[in-house]
């Protein structure tokens, strides 16, 4: 097996890294720089009831930071150079750099597989697994399971306005807890087989719910939507070209649905009339797949343009479509002689 020469690849990588470094270096040096996030300080003050306090009340204070544009920071500094209401947001500034570098790491796969891409891949696997786990805990397990089985603790510490559970919901969540523990036993090979009971519950519920939802919202709804009047009278009378033209879409839809369903029907051999209908059905399906393909490409290109816009706008400050970096009519791309 011939081994691929390494030197051209290293050369290409060096060129890519140098090109990115050159753009970043130029951008840092020109105009008002790049990739900074700003935030406005908002003081929060709420009075809450507190039985331990002599007055029966207690004041809770904290600070929140609201994201603002660089132009707003510039305006605030020009009005009062010593102000601290609008400040650089270090966390979001670091975030911009992290997001940009991760975006470039993923794009680097367009040339070939590389450690930067694999690192980004490893990050997303770990982050997304934990992210959806956390969402599941806070959105389902805490309000439903804890809310039913440990209502007092949940309302005291997490969800004060959670309604009291009924006996039925407590029994239900008891069953959910038992089935959940059985499911987690899958991680223990010696007793993992018993998790099939939880799987059975999941499969059964899904099967039962899917029959109802698919029959109701797909089979019946789509059939009803197809059963529309074929003739759509237009202005000027029934037997006119306008009526024919207005009715054409309805006729084409009904014909198309019937022909496609004929193509899907394999209990009869596709010969004669059935074969002709099936062939028309195939043509409709090809048009449908073509449209789906076009839409998929459009969606991906839209995503691509969003990522490129992020790099050029939020990170490099090379473009400013929302005019967030225009100070007194001067763009920060060229430099506002300002307060950075």
């Amino acid at each position, binding site marked *: 097996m011939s081994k691929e020469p390494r030197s051209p690849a290293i050369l290409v990588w060096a060129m890519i890294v140098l090109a990115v470094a050159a753009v970043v270096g130029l951008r840092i040096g020109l105009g008002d720089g790049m990739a900074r996030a700003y935030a406005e300080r908002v003081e929060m003050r709420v009075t809450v*009831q507190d039985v331990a306090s002599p007055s029966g009340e207690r004041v809770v204070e*904290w600070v929140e*930071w609201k*994201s603002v544009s660089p132009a707003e920071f510039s305006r605030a500094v020009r009005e009062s150079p010593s102000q601290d209401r609008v400040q650089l947001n270090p966390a979001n500034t670091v975030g911009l750099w992290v997001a940009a570098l*991760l*975006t470039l790491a993923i*794009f680097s796969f*367009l040339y070939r597989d590389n450690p930067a891409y*694999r690192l980004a891949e*490893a*990050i*997303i*696997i*770990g*982050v997304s697994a*934990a992210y*959806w*786990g*956390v*969402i599941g805990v806070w959105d*389902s397990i805490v309000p*439903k399971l804890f809310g039913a089985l440990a209502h007092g603790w949940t309302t005291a*510490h997490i969800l004060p306005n959670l309604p009291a559970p009924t006996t039925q919901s407590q029994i*239900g*969540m008891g*069953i959910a807890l038992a*089935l959940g523990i059985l499911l*987690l036993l899958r*991680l223990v090979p010696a007793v993992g087989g018993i998790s*099939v*009971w939880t*799987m*059975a*519950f999941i499969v*059964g*519920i*899904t*099967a039962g719910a*899917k*029959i*109802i939802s698919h029959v109701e919202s*797909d*089979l019946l709804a*789509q059939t009803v939507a197809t059963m529309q009047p074929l003739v759509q009278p237009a202005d000027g009378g029934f037997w006119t070209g306008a009526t024919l033209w207005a009715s054409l*879409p309805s006729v084409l839809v*009904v014909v198309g649905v019937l022909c*496609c*369903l004929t193509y*899907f029907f394999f209990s009869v051999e596709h010969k004669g009339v059935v074969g002709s209908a099936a062939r028309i059905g*195939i*043509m409709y399906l*090809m*048009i*449908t*797949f073509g*449209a789906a*393909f076009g839409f998929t490409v*459009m969606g991906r290109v839209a995503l*691509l343009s969003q990522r490129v816009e*992020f790099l050029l706008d939020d990170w490099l400050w090379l473009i400013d479509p929302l005019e967030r970096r225009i100070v007194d009519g001067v763009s920060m791309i060229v430099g506002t002689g300002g307060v950075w």
Partner: protein
Amino acid sequence: MMRIVALAIASVAGLVMLLSPFFPAMESVGAQSSEIFNVIAAIAFILGAGSLVKVNLSRVGRRDTGWGYAFVTLLCFAITLIVGLGKIGVPPNPQFAATPWAGEKDAAGSAFAWIYEFILTPITSTMFALLAFYVASAAFRAFRAKNREAMLLLGTAFIVLLGRTFAGVWLTGGFPEWASGLRLENLSMFIMQVFNTAGNRAIIIGIALGVTATSLRILLGIDRSWMGAGGGSA
């Protein structure tokens, strides 16, 4: 025995869901079953996370090829979990300021929201954006207008793509009023409203029939493939 109990659980749970819309007395049981299902689905995420940790820990422990990436995965997993479950950086909920953990987990300014905005979203959306290149490249290599069906597919994709862009509108913008139906944006709309609707409708009806048949096979215990090896069909 374990399999018989599993079959019974699947059938009873499925029948409860199936019959609950038809019997008012069973409606609450159906709704409760859905709640149980949602909680189990959330617990399944914990199972998935546990499995991920197990696999990656063993890779790190054995110093397999690429164990460094497995370590990064574990590290990112642990950080996100601690940040999310600990609600780090979450400001108090103004409505319930006295309740320590009442703040929204993904409130603006929280570390969990930061991870979503600056790590999760950029990577996932860039990965999907990459598909633009691969779809275009695959289409260029695989699509050949060698027969009538392929020509229809290609032509439709071309019209739909162009009809939704400025270039398409500009290209056929000069067509006279009586031929306005042939302008790419109108042609694209006609295809979407008529041919695409008909094709999708038939596909959706077919899927609904297929799902119903498969679900009934499961509920009646005819299809047992979901039980894994040894399940099979009756």
